């Protein structure tokens, strides 16, 4: 028997993944599904794993509760190696890790109450304890009045809240979310996301979620991991990855690729262009919002705004400005030096002849 979380040492990550590799066969061909994954997931935080479908995020999530097995590497949960657990210990581990799913996966033949009670029933809790705990979590997700309904009588958002109640009922330390909002409409999505945030803050549960929607990461995650073709290509605090995404895949997921300017953009200076088109990215703490007058004055020429965008993420202001400066000989390095307290990243997108 193993005991999970009896002595929590907060100095080590809650979940520690080292050199994880997974292969599987597709029609006789070997696919390298997870490539040398190294990841520390801190206690009590929300980690988002984002990637396109088929990137391996689902496999990665499922190795955390042993629904899928890795071929190489180790996973420690509270310093307990899980890759070598026998079937019985694995079952015990899973009772301490809740999981919710894209398609909710509620038992259609059971009422909401029976669905939520199932994890306790299989661990042989007595009736009175089950009764008390199920009512408690149904209250938490706000579905006490639906206890005797069947899942088919509920909306998508309500079904996912039942899923969350079921995942929380056995006091898990970790909650795994498999595309938990991908099948929901925007309104239900934000209800479910704020519920997850609330659970994380109230109960201190570590949440690992996978998604292909940046909005989910932006709204509730503390840290983000970008995964592409089975590899972690970028990771860090959400605001810092969002303010300066380095990998093309991250930019694509952030939907920053689309540049919709009202004129043609040329890569080279020639005598037909008049303006340098610059992209300024800033990321600062919310109380130190960048001083625009100061920034624009540095250019010494007229500055036209073509695109701007700002977001508040984890108490940070994250945004971009796309401007045209009536100056073809900008010293980028010098400007970067002058603006380093205000602007995180500066780049020349190209040259143009805007007609104003």
């Amino acid at each position, binding site marked *: 028997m193993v005991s999970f979380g009896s002595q929590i040492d907060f100095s080590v990550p809650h979940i520690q993944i080292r050199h994880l590799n997974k292969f599987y066969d597709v029609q006789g061909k070997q696919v390298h599904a997870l490539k040398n994954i190294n990841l520390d997931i801190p206690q009590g935080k929300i980690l988002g794993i984002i990637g396109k479908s088929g990137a391996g995020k689902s496999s990665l999530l499922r190795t955390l509760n042993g629904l899928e097995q890795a071929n190489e590497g180790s996973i420690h949960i509270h310093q307990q190696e899980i890759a070598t657990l026998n079937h019985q210990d694995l079952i015990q581990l899973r009772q301490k890790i809740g999981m919710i799913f894209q*398609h909710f*996966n509620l*038992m259609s033949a059971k009422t909401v109450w029976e669905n939520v009670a199932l994890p306790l029933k299989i661990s042989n809790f007595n009736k009175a304890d089950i009764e008390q705990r199920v009512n408690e979590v149904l209250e938490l997700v706000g579905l006490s009045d639906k206890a005797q309904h069947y899942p088919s009588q509920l909306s998508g958002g309500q079904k996912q809240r039942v899923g969350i109640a079921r995942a929380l009922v056995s006091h898990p330390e970790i909650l795994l979310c498999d595309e938990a909002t991908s099948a929901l409409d925007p309104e239900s999505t934000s209800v479910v996301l704020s519920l997850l945030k609330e659970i994380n803050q109230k109960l201190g549960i570590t949440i690992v979620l996978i998604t292909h929607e940046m909005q989910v990461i932006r709204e509730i995650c503390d840290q983000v991991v970008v995964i592409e073709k089975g590899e972690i290509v970028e990771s860090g605090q959400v605001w810092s990855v969002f303010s300066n995404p380095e990998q093309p895949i991250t930019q694509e997921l952030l939907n920053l690729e689309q540049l919709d300017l009202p004129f043609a953009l040329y890569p080279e200076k020639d005598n037909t262009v008049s303006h340098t088109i610059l992209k300024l990215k800033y990321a600062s703490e919310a109380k130190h919002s960048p001083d625009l007058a100061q920034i624009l004055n540095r250019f010494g020429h007229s500055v036209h705004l073509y695109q701007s965008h700002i977001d508040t993420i984890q108490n940070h202001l994250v945004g971009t400005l796309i401007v045209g400066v009536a100056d073809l000989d900008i010293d980028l390095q010098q400007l970067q030096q002058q603006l380093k307290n205000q602007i995180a990243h500066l780049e020349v997108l190209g040259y143009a002849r805007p007609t104003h």
Partner: protein
Amino acid sequence: MHDQLIDLLITGTIDTLLMVGVSAFFALLIGLPMAVILVNTSEHGIYPSKSINQSLGWIVNITRSIPFLILMVALIPLTRLIVGTSYGVWAAVVPLTLAATPFFARIAEVSLREVDQGLIEAAQAMGCNRKQIVWHVLLPEALPGIVAGFTVTLVTMINSSAIAGAIGAGGLGDIAYRYGYQRFDMQIMLAVIVVLIVLVMLIQATGDTLANQLDKRKI
């Protein structure tokens, strides 16, 4: 003549219901576990085992490919061994059970296989062992389909029981054969047909109602 006919039909109906009921009970008792084993030992089941799956599949297929009349005659030695006679209602239970069990097992297998894989994954994720997955997820979720499949099995068994009756098992088939066919008594023949139609309709209606009540997927 009229009272005699009614007596005859009542006895025949009771005999038919008795042999179908007892055999159906055994078919359920043996067929359902067979279906559970077939589903769980298949490639993507929760207890994959090619050898168990294939050997059980073979047994089911072989039994199902033998026409009932031939199966019944071929089983006479076994029936004598178990029941002590190859004649009468109880003797018909052996071949009826043997024919209905693999039939029902296949139908129940389909219902069990249709249970959403996601539900099994959810059960595994909450720490269910295999026995609990079968008991708390597979069987309750497949129940409406299993009930519908058992209804089909019952109707097929009424059919087979009439064939069994024709070679000495008693019941409605026996009456239809002796009076209707051998003596060419059209009245009795028609009466038997009416009783059979009513029986089948009652079974089907009960099965449908029950299956619908158990199905909570569309309320």
